[in-house]
């Protein structure tokens, strides 16, 4: 508001009844909503992790000390990492194709991507169950072609979770990557070609480095989302590879152990925030333009 008084210099500044709202005041309703319905419940949950059943860090000692829980942490990171890598491997060619495709073809692919995002998550996950099960389409086709003798175990294990989650995460990697690749001037790749770079050299030395910000943004988003994912691992995964979100649900719903549930939730929150900090540090908003 200071700047307003300064621009009115030369004339006496008379305060009027109608005052412009500051940015902060404008965000107040949203802030209040967030604090009431998000921050407060989270804080309460986290408080319970250090107060139940007895005050202290007992829940954390148990959570981080036991090999059972450690295996769940390891599995959570393994699944998230796998999903991120596979999504990148599939997503990069798709994003690249989208960026160079003629407009009409690209809009069809976009429609397919968005349609899949808008379809109910449960429906999509059950669809994968139907496809991947022992007597599912994929196994039947493979047996029919004579490629395998007995059905492959594609569901209720790591393979099933990775396939199902990669499918769900793909749009989150394709869209930011598409944005970054689309911004790369085709003339830069033409220049690389005239400099003598073949397709592979252009890809590795020019296109990939320029797409790194998009890949990092997409990969981090997918990794973080995967860490806390619940539905797909619960339906497509087996009991042997439980993920952190399933553990939290089990603590709260089956065991009614709010203390341990809160502790697990805090661990998840800390990891997520740490990763977000890494992203801001290396790929802060000012570095996202491919520069």
């Amino acid at each position, binding site marked *: 508001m200071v700047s307003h008084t300064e621009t009115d210099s030369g004339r006496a500044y008379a305060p009027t009844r109608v005052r412009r709202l500051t940015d902060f005041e404008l965000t107040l309703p949203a802030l209040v909503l967030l604090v009431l319905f998000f921050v407060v419940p989270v804080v309460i949950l986290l408080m319970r992790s250090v107060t139940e059943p007895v005050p202290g860090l007992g829940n954390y000692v148990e959570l981080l000390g036991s090999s059972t829980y450690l295996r769940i942490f390891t599995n959570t990171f393994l699944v998230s990492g796998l999903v991120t890598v596979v999504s990148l491997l599939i997503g990069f060619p798709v994003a690249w194709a989208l960026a160079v495709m003629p407009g009409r073809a690209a809009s069809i692919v976009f429609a397919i991507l968005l349609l899949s995002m808008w379809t109910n998550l449960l429906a999509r996950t059950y669809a994968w169950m139907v496809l991947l099960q022992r007597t599912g389409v994929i196994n039947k086709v493979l047996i029919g072609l004579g490629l395998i003798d007995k059905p492959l175990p594609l569901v209720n294990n790591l393979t099933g979770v990775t396939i199902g989650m990669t499918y769900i995460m793909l749009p989150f990697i394709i869209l930011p990557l598409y944005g970054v690749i689309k911004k790369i001037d085709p*003339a830069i790749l033409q220049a690389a*070609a005239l400099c*003598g*770079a*073949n397709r592979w050299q252009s890809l590795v030395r*020019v296109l990939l480095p320029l797409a790194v910000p998009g890949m990092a943004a997409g990969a981090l988003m997918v990794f973080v989302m995967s860490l806390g994912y619940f539905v797909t691992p619960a339906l497509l995964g087996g009991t042997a590879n439980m993920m952190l979100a399933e553990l939290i649900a089990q603590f709260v719903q089956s065991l009614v152990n709010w203390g341990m549930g809160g502790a697990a939730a805090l661990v998840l929150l800390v990891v997520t925030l740490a990763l977000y900090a890494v992203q801001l540090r290396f790929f802060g908003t000012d570095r996202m333009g*491919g520069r």
Partner: protein
Amino acid sequence: MSKPFLQIRGIRKEYGPVTAVQDVNLDVAQGEFLTFLGPSGSGKSTTLYILAGFEDPTGGDILLNGESLLSTPSHKRNIGMVFQRYTLFPHLSVGENIAFPLKVRRLPKAEIDAKVRQMLKLVRLEGFEDRKPAQMSGGQQQRVALARALAYDPPVLLMDEPLSALDKKLREEIQHEIRRIHQQTEVTILYVTHDQEEALRLSDRIAVFSKGVIDQIGTGPELYANPATRFVAEFIGDSDFLPCNVVSAGNGRAEIAICETMTVADIPLHGTASSGSKAALMLRPERLLLSKRQSESGLPVTVSDITFLGNNVHVATKTSKGNNLSVRLPFGHEAISGLNRGDAVWLKFDAESAHVFGQ
């Protein structure tokens, strides 16, 4: 031109029903600086892109040292190019950008380092090798692009309006740099521009493009003194056109009548014209003589405006038929002193400095 170095033979390019390049034929000598000059959409950039291998021609051939280039992909043509837009690799430093073509050729590191230093010296950017392109001005970026394009000693350097994004002063500065670098490296340069001044300043020869064909190829003075078509006359230098009637024509010369009061004989004729047909007379503002005294042999006109342009004074006049004719005179010329808007004056010109364009 004893031995043709680069030959462009009947190049055509069609995009569906649209013909971008109709039939371009051109021989370029080694070490020549040849400019493609023309308005946008005249086919000059398309021809350059065919040379670069980014476009395949619908017909025709391009020979370098007698061998066809067309079946060679861009990255094996060994041609250098500087683009209109800034195309330095933004994630690489200036030095790494210049080293890029050498690295993909897998040259030894010592050789690459030496070449990068040599190139930076050539474009006078020593000490800038660790800068990122984003930290450099547009002019500096284009100089680095030039260094990158010359680092692998290409036989031909293509330049596609490399200075069009720069302001006038910087443009002139880099034009001088390009001239110096051309003289120093003796590389063959094909340069595309729509700016006649730039073309005249830089080139050994200019190919004037219009509607997908080359209207005329020649040195700047040749194009100025003897334009083959009305289009070339309009594009190189300033010119005005007067409708005229052909009295007689033959042997590339014509006698014409202007404004029914004046006839001039022995004017160079381009295109076809016969006795009684209509034609256009081209006059250059700087080749017209203005006189305040009435004369039988002069064309009577009225002064409509006088503009002072530094070392020149521009006098706009109108003929009795309402056609505009500009006259450019040096500042302080005796014919201008005391001249006012609305004055009646008489214009004279030398038959050799005028041109008649038939149908």
